[in-house]
């Protein structure tokens, strides 16, 4: 899996200005984009998903160009074939769990799902162990259940890449650990590359084969296990985790640019 991002985007809010200049690439199936809030990391995956359009540059996922300003390519979000897990899941409150998961399969006509699609929904609910919640509404679910439903909904159309925006920040610490393990398992089962956005060094330790560190709208550093001197080194992740932790504190201490909220 190859992910290539090289984009520029300027945001204005009142008299504040935020400039994003993000350039990085990853060959790995597990990529962590790490940075403090307001560093531009969320804006970057929103650009990958097609929710915001950059002013310049290009985005390539697995050989398919999703955005290229020079060639005039800008696929709409619905055609990008990416999965996206929102920070607070964005489950549709007026739809049941079953309807949420079936949402991407539903066509304008016929009004009911085909039996193949119904089967597919039932299977994915079984594999995420949420079959018993099928008729519940999102407001009735716990945090972990919501996350499973959101993951099932994101995975049902077999996306080419799964983007996760701070996936564990809404969970308590016990559950956080368990959902990290579940996410790794989902990655294996569906064979889907993950891009995890986070400000939590613990996520770096679990998910980073490639670590991209963002600060003030720019990519500070890209480290990749494959390119490191000792790729088989079991301690690699701990090292980048320390590195991320150090960077975070270092950047916080030396931040002379005023914080820009995104």
């Amino acid at each position, binding site marked *: 899996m190859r992910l290539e991002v090289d984009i520029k985007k300027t945001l204005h809010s009142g008299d504040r200005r935020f400039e994003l200049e993000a350039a990085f690439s990853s060959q790995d199936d597990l990529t962590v984009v790490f940075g403090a809030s307001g560093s531009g990391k969320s804006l970057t995956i929103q650009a990958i*998903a*097609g*929710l915001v359009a950059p002013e310049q540059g290009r985005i390539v996922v697995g050989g398919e160009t999703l955005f290229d300003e020079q060639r005039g390519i800008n696929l*709409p*979000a*619905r055609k*990008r074939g*990416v*999965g*996206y897990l*929102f920070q*607070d899941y*964005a489950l*549709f*409150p*007026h739809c049941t769990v079953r309807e949420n998961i079936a*949402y*991407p399969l539903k066509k*304008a006509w016929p009004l009911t799902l085909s039996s193949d699609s119904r089967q597919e929904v039932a299977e994915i609910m079984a594999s995420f162990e949420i079959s018993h919640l099928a008729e519940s*509404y999102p*407001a009735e679910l716990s945090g972990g259940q919501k996350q499973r439903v959101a993951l099932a*909904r994101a995975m049902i*159309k077999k996306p080419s890449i799964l983007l996760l925006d701070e996936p564990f920040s809404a969970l308590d610490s016990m559950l956080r650990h368990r959902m990290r393990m579940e996410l790794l398992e989902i990655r294996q089962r569906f064979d889907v590359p993950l891009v995890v956005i986070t400000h939590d060094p613990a996520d770096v330790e679990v998910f980073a084969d490639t670590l991209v560190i963002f600060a003030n709208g720019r990519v500070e550093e890209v480290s990749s296990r494959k390119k490191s001197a000792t790729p088989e080194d079991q301690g690699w992740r701990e090292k980048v985790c320390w590195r991320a932790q150090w960077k975070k504190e270092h950047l916080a201490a030396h931040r002379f640019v005023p914080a820009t909220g995104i």
Partner: protein
Amino acid sequence: MPDLTPLWLTLRIAACATLLAFVFGVGFAWLTARFSFWGRDVLDAVLTLPLVMPPTVLGYYLIVVWGRNGWLGGWLNAHFGISLMFTWQGAVLAATTVAFPLLFKSARAAFEGVSSEYEQAARILGDTELRVFFRITLPLAARGLLAGTMLAFARAMGDFGATLMVAGNIEGKTQTAALAVFDAVQAGDYSLANTLVVIMSVVCVTILVMTNKLANRGRAGR
């Protein structure tokens, strides 16, 4: 049994007016809630104006625009030989105008209450903009829209001033219940006035109670 023609006429006019106000109100509400463009605040103010202007002033404006020699009315008259003045369609026009701001305001608030994250999620899941509107935005705003529609219907039923200016007070043709009550009292026919007033009051109270119920349930969530 008093003559209830004005009542049926009122219901028919209010129904047509609510339908028209719904189409335009929802359209403009969506536009102003979802996009920020130059002059949006002015547009919002102009569209809300009928709520605060005296109905007779409003009626005067309607005559200026839709009258036989008006900007739009003149064109209609020249090309189709139609005039809305002193017809029940003219009463619909007046009722639509007074009811419009109530629908527009409620609908705009309802649309602004729908988190754009749901719409983004739907886009990523493969929806076109049209499908996003009908599958996400509209259902999530439905309670607010329904409450606004009922308020608009109540207002359309009760209009006096604008209707009088545009459609006149022609018995059996443009005389709505509100106008009929005025005529009945002038003529000293209190039994007719009482009947109409009681029916109008019951309908309006029912509508307000239902609107409040919808609004409360909306706040509590599911």
